[in-house]
């Protein structure tokens, strides 16, 4: 990250042996049109872009395939297993994604509840173990539970991705303490995935010291996705820089900023 202060030079963001400049990853779902998606992703500065695996529409292939719009040479494509409710399904989707031939990374989702889209942590751990053994680099979408995060790291996951709040909710970072604790205790990268709604959410999340953020709906559902993508880029940088700078301690009482000496009688 380029900053005005030399001492604040950031370390590169390395995940699974690959190094990136941007700590913001973005999804490609739910945009009103492909042109808006392409411009928003460009404005976000993201290098890692998520995609989903679905059946080809046998009648209109060209309109649904995301690769007709995104250059896989420019972006690092991270396939997800979104929609999978069992470890078996998630493994099947991951293998299909890998066969598309871009990389061995997968964002693993095993959904346990359809209303909240919260993860089934048992299925998640089961799928993670199978995929790691099969040579995948697993980035595991999980809740903000420390013990699950530790187990995912033990299972060999490349990164752990706790949620800020439920997928698509835009509720922001509900549990800064848990996310901070996960970051403090894990050695693999911690990337917050899901729930960020606006720039202040992204900034606050990065201030917890996490390695990055993945978001989709916050951009796609903004009134102006391209402008929001730009705001998110700035917010992620601001939050990261503030984390590196180290915030002042919180105090319960006021401390004057101006000298007490030299006041008039």
């Amino acid at each position, binding site marked *: 990250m380029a900053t005005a202060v030399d001492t604040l030079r950031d370390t590169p963001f390395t995940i699974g042996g690959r190094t990136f400049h941007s700590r913001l990853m973005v*999804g*490609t*779902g*739910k*945009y009103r049109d492909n042109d808006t*998606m392409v411009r928003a992703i460009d404005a976000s500065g993201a290098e890692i872009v*998520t*995609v*989903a*695996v*679905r*059946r*080809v529409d*046998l009648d209109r*292939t060209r309109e*649904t*395939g*995301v*690769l007709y719009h995104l250059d896989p040479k420019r972006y690092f*494509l991270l*396939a*997800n297993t*979104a929609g999978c409710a069992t470890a078996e399904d998630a493994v*099947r989707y991951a*293998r*299909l*994604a890998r*066969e*598309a031939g871009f990389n061995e990374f997968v964002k693993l989702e095993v959904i346990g509840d359809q209303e909240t889209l919260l993860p089934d942590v048992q299925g998640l751990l089961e799928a993670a173990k199978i995929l790691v053994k099969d040579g995948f680099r697993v980035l595991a979408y999980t809740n903000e539970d420390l013990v699950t995060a530790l187990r995912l790291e033990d299972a060999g996951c490349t990164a752990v991705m706790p949620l800020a709040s439920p*997928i*698509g909710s835009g509720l922001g970072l509900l549990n800064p303490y848990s996310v901070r604790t996960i970051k403090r205790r894990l050695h693999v990268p911690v990337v917050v995935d*899901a729930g960020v709604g606006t720039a202040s959410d992204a900034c606050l999340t990065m201030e917890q010291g996490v390695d990055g953020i*993945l*978001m*989709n*709906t916050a951009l796609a559902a903004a009134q102006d996705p391209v402008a929001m993508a730009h705001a998110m880029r700035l917010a992620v940088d601001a939050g990261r820089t503030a984390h590196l700078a180290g915030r002042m301690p919180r105090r319960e009482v006021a401390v004057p900023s101006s000298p007490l000496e030299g006041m008039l009688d």
Partner: protein
Amino acid sequence: MNDTIDITVNGQHRAVSPGVTLLELLASLALDPRAVVVEHNRTIVRRPALGDVRIGPGDAVELVHFVGGG
């Protein structure tokens, strides 16, 4: 004897000629083999083998690709 066999492609029933290969199926659907991943009866078939694998009666074929997602 029928001159077609019934198979399932992406959950839809289809009638194809007996002995048709996966590669020929893709061609009949106007799909570029480089743009899809093929699963035949739950087994992934890699691109170079698509012309070697013949589809039998009742087979299930899934044709997938990347779409927008988060």
